[in-house]
């Protein structure tokens, strides 16, 4: 039997109409699930009162375990216990290799035709993909939510890091599908945190989201304008978090106790880490704390602790600075700072962030839960439980999307920072006479030449009716859905032949790659412009050479004197040479020159064509009667 929740005035749902909608923070270390009940967004605890679910899956002899029991297996059975699977989502085998030799798993390549390019992990229960591992975590959260809410779920909003690319987002959606979960949409984690604080209601401003979790640090600079969140810059450190704080305290403790770090066993080390974590947490509220390890005991004051962790915090502030620079902003232009992640409870962290940004950071919502809470608020709106005008949340695409045109040039169809969902179409044409197929090669990036951008997918449009060059009209449509996933379709307009592709790139870019690509596009803007001009002229030269060569072969002998013929041939050679060696300007003037020198030839050809057409006419007429 359903138990009733108190609704906001005037918003009591029709019976059976209230849709149970979840916000899910699918984290690297821990995951959470939240929902809106009685007008309040809250995370849901398990039967033991634990809100966080360790993002750990153990493929055991008896079955699959998720969460705390799985975490306990990680020491005993590391090969079959998958931790930090989020780092492997949507990545290729080579990316996973570059994550470092620290992963104890045995990777295998995916079976043919199935999540190609994605690494599978060998476990005693068979080879599993990161998507399947994530689905196990989602299943555990969904099960908890069903038990708590007493009924079927309508759907969920799942959060992902702002720097997640298409492949990583698609992998996350696939995991949800596998878990039987309807995904309303994916939401960027920093955006979710800002939503939790209701900043989306505030109109506009620059919001910095400082996310210091257990093992990773992310900084995101968002700009909010007219209800649209734009991710201006992201940065961080994938190997910096609360665990490093514990490690640094544990080291201090061992030093004070006169214990050589290399001489202790893993159990003692674990004990030291647990004590260090307790010390850190106690110092969040107390000015000093008693510390004990083995026989040794002492005290650690908050000042000493601050001194120990300052070098770690320095690293976060440096990343913060870099991101601001990438966004083209100064610290005093930040309107709000949102704190996310358990490690932002450390008073020194708050102090330093406030010192740098000049803004008192928002900390009133539990930093472990804030992302899930924001996702739940968004899910509640998308489920239709609240009027839509309450919150219309949009994201933007981080890098421009386009395709390759002749000469290896990037033709941007959707520019970066366009709000999504979006659909844009552009018409292209054939380059050669009688061309019946066209390759559509889709790229992501800001540079003018495709070789500097990232290839996402390629497909071919076949069955174009043979026409003179430039005759066919091919409409290419780019569509990006609310989750930032791209679909590209091409259609030849006169015949209606179509071809399309759903972009699911084999592996992805890191946040550093994205910012590097952006930076490069600024740095090389001038070079790119020149190169683009050159390529355009080269393409034009090729077109002229091709057309003239065809014309010479067909009508050269009949319409030109030998002298004229050789002169034009020489011009053709000279243009070919110039195309290889010259710059954009000289190629352009060479094209112009050859245009003039072949004018007479073109005129004669045209006359001949007219004569033929007219005589043809006569023949037709004759046959008609």
């Amino acid at each position, binding site marked *: 039997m359903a*138990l*009733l929740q108190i609704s906001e005035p005037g918003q*009591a749902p*029709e019976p059976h109409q209230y849709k149970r909608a979840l916000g899910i923070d699918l984290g690297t270390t821990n995951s959470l699930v939240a929902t809106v009940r009685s007008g309040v967004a809250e995370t849901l605890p398990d039967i033991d009162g634990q809100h966080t679910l360790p993002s750990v899956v153990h493929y055991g002899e008896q079955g699959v375990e998720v969460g705390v029991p799985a975490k306990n297996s990680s020491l005993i059975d590391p090969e079959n216990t998958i931790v930090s699977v989020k780092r492997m989502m949507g990545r290729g085998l080579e990316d996973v290799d570059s994550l470092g030799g620290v992963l104890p798993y045995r990777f295998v390549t995916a079976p043919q035709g199935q999540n190609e390019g994605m690494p599978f992990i060998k476990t005693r229960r068979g080879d599993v993909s990161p998507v399947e591992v994530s689905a196990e975590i989602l299943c555990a959260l969904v099960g908890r939510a069903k*038990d708590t809410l007493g009924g079927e779920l309508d759907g969920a909003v799942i959060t992902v890091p702002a720097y997640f690319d298409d492949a990583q987002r698609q992998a996350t959606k696939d995991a949800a599908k596998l878990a039987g979960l309807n995904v309303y949409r994916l939401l960027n984690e920093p955006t979710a945190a800002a939503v939790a604080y209701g900043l989306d209601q505030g109109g506009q401003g620059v919001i910095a989201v400082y996310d210091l979790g257990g093992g990773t640090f992310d900084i995101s600079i968002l700009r909010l304008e007219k209800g649209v969140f734009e991710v201006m810059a992201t940065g961080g450190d994938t190997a910096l978090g609360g665990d490093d704080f514990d490690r640094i305290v544990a080291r201090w403790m061992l030093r004070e106790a006169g214990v050589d770090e290399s001489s202790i066993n893993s159990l003692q080390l674990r004990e030291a880490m647990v004590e260090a974590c307790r010390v850190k947490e106690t110092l969040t509220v107390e000015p000093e704390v008693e510390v004990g390890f083995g026989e040794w005991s002492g005290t650690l004051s908050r000042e000493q602790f601050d001194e120990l962790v300052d070098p770690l915090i320095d690293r976060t502030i440096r990343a913060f600075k870099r991101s601001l620079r990438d966004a083209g902003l100064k610290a005093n232009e930040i309107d709000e700072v949102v704190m996310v992640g358990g490690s932002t409870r450390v008073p020194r962290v708050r102090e330093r962030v406030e010192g740098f940004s000049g803004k008192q950071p928002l900390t009133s919502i539990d930093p472990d839960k804030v992302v899930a809470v924001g996702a739940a608020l968004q899910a509640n709106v998308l489920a239709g439980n609240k009027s839509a005008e309450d919150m219309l949340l949009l994201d933007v695409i981080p890098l421009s999307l386009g395709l390759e045109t002749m000469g290896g040039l990037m033709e941007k169809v959707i520019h970066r920072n366009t709000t999504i969902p979006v659909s844009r179409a552009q018409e292209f044409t054939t380059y050669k006479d009688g061309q019946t197929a066209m390759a559509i090669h889709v790229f992501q990036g800001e540079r003018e030449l495709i070789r500097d951008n990232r290839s996402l997918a390629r497909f071919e449009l076949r069955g174009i009716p043979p026409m003179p060059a430039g005759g066919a009209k091919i409409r290419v449509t780019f569509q990006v859905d609310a989750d930032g996933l791209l679909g590209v379709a091409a259609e030849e307009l006169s015949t209606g032949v179509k071809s399309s592709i759903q972009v699911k790139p084999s592996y992805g870019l890191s946040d550093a790659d994205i910012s590097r690509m952006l930076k490069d596009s600024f740095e090389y803007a001038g070079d790119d412009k020149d190169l683009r001009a050159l390529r355009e002229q080269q393409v034009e030269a090729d077109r002229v050479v091709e057309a003239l060569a065809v014309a010479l072969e067909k009508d050269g002998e009949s319409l030109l004197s030998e002298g004229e013929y050789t002169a034009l041939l020489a011009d053709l050679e000279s243009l070919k040479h110039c195309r290889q060696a010259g710059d954009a300007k000289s190629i352009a003037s060479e094209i112009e020159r050859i245009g003039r020198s072949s004018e007479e030839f073109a005129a004669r050809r045209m006359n001949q064509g007219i004569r033929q057409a007219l005589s043809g006419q006569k023949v037709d007429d004759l046959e008609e009667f």
Partner: protein
Amino acid sequence: MAITVTEAAARHIKGQLSRRGKGLGIRLGVRTSGCSGMAYVLEFVDVTDDGDQVFEDHEVKVFIDPKSMVYLDGTELDFVKEGLNEGLQFNNPNAASECGCGESFSVDAG
């Protein structure tokens, strides 16, 4: 007759009100719809309506419009926990039958 609120329900409602940060109390009501004819309404109250009847039990104010009162008189509002699931439940002596979900009910004619 009156509307009563159990101690557990009162504790829950007070907690919800303080977390919400505002509100005079809660509104109980009845709406015609649902699989068994009538559906319960349970909302926070920021503004009272003319004709509202107000009951106070365990320091919780309960507002009811006169039309709904006919169907709810004598109802006890209870707080129930079933495993992870928790929420409020109407123990309504007027309800002749309830649909299995507890979100709607019907009354005997006459």
